[in-house]
């Protein structure tokens, strides 16, 4: 095995290129800026396009235009930029525009601390768009995940025609780490499904049994309409309540019904262990250290590391928790995802271990949470 030394942000950029990304636009913001720098190094020599927008709104706007022209697109920012993306995120959800959005989270609220980590945007990413329809959020734990999950993010964005978030963290994005690039487990690259070109296109038409409309690019021989307005299959405004309801339901179900196919996670199940530790993101690393130490000391616990946060992988969580007497949830905020765990496991005692001070949650802190109950 031979290693390279890569920071999480560069791994995201390289994963994006490997997934076929050929358009990036971003606005500088710590701790996400090195994704932009990496894309600027990588894309132009490949014939790709890398732009710096005048602000975050422009950056995601460029991406949506380029995605509709048929390119695989990505943008990267941190919490303050996600706020400015919000209206265009809704556009991408409702009008089914594939885009990968990287959020290298930093300590909020607001401009907060540019160089301190947090997982404070986890619910914001899910709920921070008008309409409230589901989105996909993947959460890397380390530099290898940054590469592989970014590839998955592109595949999902293309397949389901939706925005896909990668919820990274300053503590992953700006940390350099050894990585075995040859040994990485990466997916085959998926392209969006093309509609036939011998007939006029109904841009949002889905056939029986199909949940995602086929795609043709703006600029090809067949005319394509895209609109942020509530639309029918033809891409024109509709007031037909039944058609509107059908479409909203489809936008929801296209993701919810397929969740089993992209519920990325790691589970370390110990028979007879009473405690199940649930963690994601950089905190999962401390959780794993605790898992190993408890095992070494003969006081084993089980561990579930979630790498798909939204839509909530309910079956994975229920399955992992089926024999657990209690659950300990670790996250780098004051309690966001733990609400979902509470919702899914209403009868289990749930201990919350959170922290929001810009520092990593330590294994000692988690051990304390486990032992104090």
């Amino acid at each position, binding site marked *: *095995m*031979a*290693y*390279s*030394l*890569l920071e999480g942000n*560069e791994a995201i950029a*390289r994963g994006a290129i490997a997934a076929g990304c050929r*358009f990036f636009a971003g606005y500088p913001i710590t701790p996400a800026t090195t994704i932009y720098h990496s894309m600027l190094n*990588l894309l*132009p*020599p490949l*014939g790709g*396009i890398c732009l710096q*927008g*005048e602000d975050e*709104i*422009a950056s*995601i*706007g*460029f991406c*949506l*235009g*380029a*995605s*509709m*022209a*048929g390119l695989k697109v990505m943008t990267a920012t941190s919490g303050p930029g996600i706020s400015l993306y919000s*209206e265009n995120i809704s*556009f991408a959800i409702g009008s089914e525009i594939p885009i990968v959005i990287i959020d290298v989270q930093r300590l909020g609220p607001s401009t907060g601390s*540019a*160089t301190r980590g947090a997982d404070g945007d986890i619910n914001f990413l899910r709920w921070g768009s008008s309409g409230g329809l589901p989105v996909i959020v993947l959460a890397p734990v380390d530099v290898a995940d940054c590469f592989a999950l970014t590839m998955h993010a592109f595949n999902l964005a293309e397949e389901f025609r939706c925005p896909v978030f990668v919820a990274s963290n300053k*503590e992953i994005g*700006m*940390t*350099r*780490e*050894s990585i075995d*690039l*040859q040994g990485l487990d990466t997916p085959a690259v998926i392209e969006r499904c093309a509609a036939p070109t011998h007939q006029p296109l109904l841009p949002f038409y889905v056939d029986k049994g199909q949940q995602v409309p086929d795609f043709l*690019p*703006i*600029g090809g*021989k*067949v*005319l394509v*309409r*895209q*609109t*942020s*307005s509530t639309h029918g299959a033809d*891409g*024109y405004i509709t007031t037909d309540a039944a058609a509107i309801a059908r479409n909203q339901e489809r936008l929801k179900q296209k993701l919810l019904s397929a969740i089993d196919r992209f519920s990325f996670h790691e589970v370390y199940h110990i028979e007879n262990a009473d405690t199940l530790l649930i963690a994601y993101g950089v905190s999962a*690393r*401390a959780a*794993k250290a605790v898992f*190993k130490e408890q095992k070494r000391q003969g006081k084993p616990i089980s561990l579930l590391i979630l790498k798909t946060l939204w839509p909530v992988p309910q079956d994975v969580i229920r399955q992992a928790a089926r024999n657990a007497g209690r659950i300990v949830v670790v996250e780098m905020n004051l309690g966001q995802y733990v609400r979902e765990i509470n919702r899914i496991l209403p009868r289990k005692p749930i201990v919350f271990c959170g922290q929001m001070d810009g*520092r*990593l949650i*330590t294994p000692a802190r988690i051990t304390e949470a486990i032992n104090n109950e």
Partner: protein
Amino acid sequence: MNSLLNAERPPVLCPGCAHERITHTLDLAFQNMGLARHQIVIVSDIGCSGLFDTFFHTHAMHGLHGRALTYAAGLKMARPELNVVVSMGDGGQGIGGAHLLAACRRNIDLTLLILNNFNFGMTGGQFSATTPPEAQLGSGFLTALERPLDICEVARSAGAPYVHRCSGYDKALAQKIQGAIEYEGFAVMDIWGICPGRYTKKNRLTPKMIDDALARRPALEGIIPENVRPEYGQHYRRMAADQKKAPAPAVIRNQYKAPQTGRQEVVLLGSAGQRVITAGELLCIAGLTAGLKTTQKNEYNITVLRGPSISELILSPEEIDFSGIDTPTVMVALAQEGVDRRRDLFERLAKDALIIQIGGVSLPASKARIHRVDLKAQGVKPPDWALASLAVLAKLKKVIQPRMLEAALKVRFKGKALASALQLIKRVKVGKR
């Protein structure tokens, strides 16, 4: 020629709306140019100008208020052969002002048609960026408080190479629009018109009054000579073609044996200018040459040339789960600022931990063993102190050994920089215990 209008969706504008006239004139311009439907994309956003994409049977993208120029830029960069026509209102120029300025500065080959009717028609006649303060509108006395913007003067000073101000009732409008579309660069047309549904309810405005008002302003009729320059997309592609392919990340061969087993946590405590971050990276690469897993976390002020510079390194034969520093095995005290920032770490040091204390830095109390080195006396300059401290570690066979450090330098540096770094690590003396 055939009309490119959408036969199934005729314009639905108020009777007497200038937009309707401009719709037909734009269609005429397309026909005169001999363009096919698929060669055009109409990009629009919110307001009555945002209906344009439905009137034409061409490619279309309709998005958020004031953001049409951003989608257009992405489309044009991805599909340079497309004719990208953006229709926006005067309202869009206010909310999307940053995009207008940037589009002028950038000079992507887009045509922006501003359907300027001096108010927000769709939402009930509120004042916009171009409303005269004396107008009577839905926004009441607030209208009188703001000064209207001369979009064309703004566009010109922001660098637009093509700016045309004209009336929507101009008999030559089709040729003028054609000129803007044919111009290879960002072309702005500020087209003045009447909004009968809102604006002229309480304000008098006629085509003749528009002509008179235009006549009182300096004429802007197309190319702005001082702003003419290469189109952004062409320029981008030319420059991008000269960019060298980025190398793949270096793959480090596992060829040496680390002097210790077990997880080593090293903290370099320095200040700006000591190349602490580079030294941290070198230590990690040195670890990789012994097949160790490594992580590097850095801390420095946003004003990068001042203040502490700290690098936290973990080298371990096992998976590195927790990537924070728990109990450092080695602290390198390179500068007072760095030491002061992490004073709390010292009291946690175990007896077998090692502190490399560079001459002149004072240390908080701790149980750790202290090894002093006076780099200044050895004639090493501060920018080399962090690297020199790695040489000290290597010579003490602590965390790394000299061959690992040499190999790391060969990965990271080339030519003269490599030669001088190799020379430096050779000549650094370990100092006294």
